[in-house]
């Protein structure tokens, strides 16, 4: 089977055709095309069926989509019955979504953002931003290569390969580290900004922040942070209007 690197490159745009009906489906079909090319010469009928299956409904975390892509492509070459491949795709949706969200959105991204913010305050400035971009993208690229290779090697037994992999261990470590990094970053960055406007202004900003946290938690989705900010701006306009 050839086309692994082209498929990996195409996985960067796997969310390109995201929609409410097939979700990642068409993006997966686009990424699967180079992997399935060799099947065309061996078994054209099977190739057509495989292309149809590859673009059907699918959803998971984009950085781990390679696991499902590689596993299903390998299964097509192994001659696994189509219905079984469809079941494998369906079964992989939720676990890959949950693992990827915990690993990246709730783990690595807040960890690196928190660390970068602390580094900015401590004087690293633009180097911190560059470091964040570099580290995140190295992790993302390495995960993408690993997931596609693991999927291609494991085929239908990709579930076992995921269970035995480094992912669950990394999630256990990266979650608390992310919480700690964000916890350190918030007071440091807040103090860095607030020292410019002096104590009375800082107390005022902290009062606005405390009010914002309280009311957004109280009202939930009805009053998001953006809506609260707009409300605060309107109140400021009215205040300046009454007391020019």
């Amino acid at each position, binding site marked *: 089977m050839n086309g692994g690197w082209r498929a990996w490159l195409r996985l960067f*745009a796997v969310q*390109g*055709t995201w*929609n*409410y*009906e*097939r979700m990642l489906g*068409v993006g997966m*079909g*686009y990424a699967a095309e180079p992997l399935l090319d060799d099947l065309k010469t061996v078994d054209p009928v099977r*190739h*057509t069926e*495989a*292309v*149809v*299956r590859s*673009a*059907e409904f699918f959803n998971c975390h984009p950085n781990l989509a390679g696991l499902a892509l590689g596993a299903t492509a390998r299964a097509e070459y192994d001659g696994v019955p*189509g219905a079984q491949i469809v079941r494998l795709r369906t079964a992989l949706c939720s676990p890959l979504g949950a693992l990827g969200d915990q690993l990246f959105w709730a783990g690595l991204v*807040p960890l690196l953002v*928190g660390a970068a913010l*602390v580094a900015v305050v401590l004087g690293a400035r633009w180097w911190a931003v560059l470091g964040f971009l570099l580290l995140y993208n190295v992790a993302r690229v390495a995960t993408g290569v690993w997931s596609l290779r693991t999927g291609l090697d494991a085929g239908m037994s990709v579930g076992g390969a995921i269970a035995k992999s480094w992912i669950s261990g990394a999630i256990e470590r990266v*979650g*608390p*580290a992310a*919480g*700690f990094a*964000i*916890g*350190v*970053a*918030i*007071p*440091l*960055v*807040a*103090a*860095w*900004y607030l020292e410019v*406007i002096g104590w009375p*202004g800082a107390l*005022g*900003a902290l*009062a*606005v*922040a405390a009010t*914002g946290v309280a009311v*957004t*938690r109280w009202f939930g989705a009805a009053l998001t*942070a953006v809506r*609260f*900010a*707009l409300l*605060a*701006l309107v109140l*400021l*306009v009215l205040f*300046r*209007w009454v007391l*020019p």
Partner: protein
Amino acid sequence: MASVHVQVRPAPGRLTDRVPAQGWFVVSAVFHYLGPAFAVLLFAQVDVLGVAWLRIATAGLVLAVLGGFSLSAVRRANARAIQRHSAALAAGESGAIRRLQYASLARDAGRAGGLTALGLACAWALAEPVAAMDRSTGLGLTLVALGCALSAAIGGAIRSAGRGPRLRWLGAGALVGLLAAALR
């Protein structure tokens, strides 16, 4: 051939089809006169800074609403394109998948470009009134902006930490951060 499930929804009755052309003319004419009339009344009541604030709030609102709305519109357009190509997808045409993907990427690029242009236009329109602000209004804006940003950061951190060990790590980190801020 593998079975393909394509959900085809009936086209909803569009508002533009149901309302007669005269209706749109009446609505348009009323708002063309009402808008300036309200604006004249507003400018008589609100000073230059008040108008600047209204502009800031409006620009923020427009960008905040359009950001989510345009993403949803792009996704709906993707779904409609897939429905149009459902026969080709069911026949396993790789070319159809490629065309859908490239068209969707172009739509998303158009959205990103449009929002960026809108943001720059808002910044350009706001630059002059913001520069003309007096000191106390500038301080008020800074205070509210910092407070709101801090509120969003704290609220988001608490929400994503949940109630498990991660929340304890968040608390420990905040203590270390406060200590570091005091020692700086």
